[in-house]
């Protein structure tokens, strides 16, 4: 048995693997134009709290641009920002906080983000309000089980800000990884109260009751949106951002409970 039969394939395999293991990934070839036309798929990365409103806007966008399809990737803003800086082929990024958008603009992957909506926190309690919570200071009661978002994600940062503004010390039983997970704990009745966005309370329907509190005004979350510089479909990206900023877009977002600037 010759030694080459082992070493040569090994060398080839390693060369092939290390060769594509370094440097930045090339942008997706899915945008390969046919006949000078633009790609027909638009990929939008958006914060989890935008799920309902953006899905509807996507349907409208497809109706206005026959032949195009809109794909969404909804998730925690921080995770999405990470994926974009790691080279994920996205056209538009809509984040739940300026800080997560900054991660992307700092990497020069997006220019001139625009704030398109604001979101306000509310206290969410299970239908029937078993722990008789009616304002923010009730959350400081050790008998009340509270869920908050983790401070690393936008809704958690906003919750801390609001509690600080009220001068309250709240010990939650859990710090959830995103706003939808926090809301789920309320829906299931596992906690007596949570701080989530007003839009999430609306989306949960009758299972969850929302309670407004004045300090929420001190922790308003701005949502920035931007077309990405490395977008595989730059034309469509611009058009989608325009739709979100248009009166029609604002109308859909306002129906979902967002405040429009």
């Amino acid at each position, binding site marked *: 048995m010759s030694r080459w039969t*082992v070493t040569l394939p090994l060398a080839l*395999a390693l060369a092939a693997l290390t060769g594509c293991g370094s440097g930045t990934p090339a942008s997706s070839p899915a945008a390969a134009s046919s006949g000078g036309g633009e790609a027909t798929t638009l990929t939008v990365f958006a914060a989890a709290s935008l799920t309902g409103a953006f899905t509807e806007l996507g349907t409208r966008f497809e109706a206005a641009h026959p032949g195009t399809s809109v794909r969404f990737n909804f998730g925690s803003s921080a995770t999405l920002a990470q994926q974009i800086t790691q080279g994920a082929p996205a056209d538009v990024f809509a984040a739940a906080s300026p800080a997560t958008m900054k991660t992307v603009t700092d990497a020069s992957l997006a220019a001139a983000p625009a704030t398109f909506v604001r979101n306000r926190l509310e206290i969410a309690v299970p239908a029937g309000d078993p722990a008789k919570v009616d304002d923010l200071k009730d959350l400081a009661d050790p008998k009340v089980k509270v869920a908050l978002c983790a401070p690393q994600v936008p809704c958690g940062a906003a919750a801390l800000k609001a509690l600080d503004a009220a001068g309250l010390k709240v010990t939650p039983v859990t710090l*959830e990884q995103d706003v939808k997970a926090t809301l789920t704990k309320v829906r*299931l009745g596992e906690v007596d109260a949570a701080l989530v966005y007003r839009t999430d309370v609306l989306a949960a329907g009758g299972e969850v009751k929302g309670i407004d509190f004045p300090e929420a005004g001190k922790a308003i979350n701005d949502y920035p949106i931007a077309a990405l510089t490395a977008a595989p479909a730059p034309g469509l990206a611009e058009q989608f951002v325009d739709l979100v900023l248009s009166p029609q877009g604002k109308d859909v977002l306002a129906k979902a409970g967002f405040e429009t600037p």
Partner: protein
Amino acid sequence: MSSTRTAPGRGSDRGREARAVTGRLPWTLVTPALAGLAFLVLPLAGLLIRAPWATLPRRLTEPHVLQALRLSLLTATLATAACLLLGVPLAWLLARVSFPGRRLVRALVTVPLVLPPVVGGVALLLVLGRRGLAGRWLEESFGVTLPFTTAGVVIAEAFVAMPFLVISVEGALRAADQRFEEAAATLGASRWTVFRRVTLPLVSPGVVAGAVLCWARALGEFGATITFAGNFPGTTQTMPLAVYLALETEPEAAIVLSLVLLAVSVLVLAGLRDRWVTGP
């Protein structure tokens, strides 16, 4: 690691059954084999290459890291103890007692092994949560709530890890020579004495291997824990949860935490290899 379906402790020596046919190695097999190896090894190498070695000691000794590590070791150990208490008798039942529906029971025992852990977490929540079938009764009668407590973490880990132990011990019991047990029984030993003095010592390597696998699986448990027990530093935030949240803001911290878990896994594997070496 979570999808190993081999029953350890069967001690079959397959070392030399595939004697290489003389002649050239077939490229068509060697090339994909090496690609497969690289696919499994390179991501782990990536962790080592990207690790912030300079700041590693400082990051490892940060209070929240040590807190998560301590909690992980404690809960994984408690979960393994619970699995041993319940899992060894269950394995014995499956291997030594024939009862109607045994095959169905064996299939049910392995369900948590193939179930996505998040689904396991949801299932636990619906049974043991505050509004769950058993959870409601626990709270009304004893004032005990399990979600968001360290006990909840242990339950989530035990639920996911126990099948490893049961399968491993059952395999060892089936492979063990039953004549010793029969001899002890004919000499007048009760079933309990036979189990304690003959059966357990016979299958102890299988029990140890199963316990180690079970412990490693419990240590790495993420989905069921975050769903059922939530995430709070010091109470329910185990290492995998800390890794996930660190990724949101500090990828470097996440790499450091991952390295710790990787080191533990390698140590476990190294320990197991010595257990499984059977014969020359």
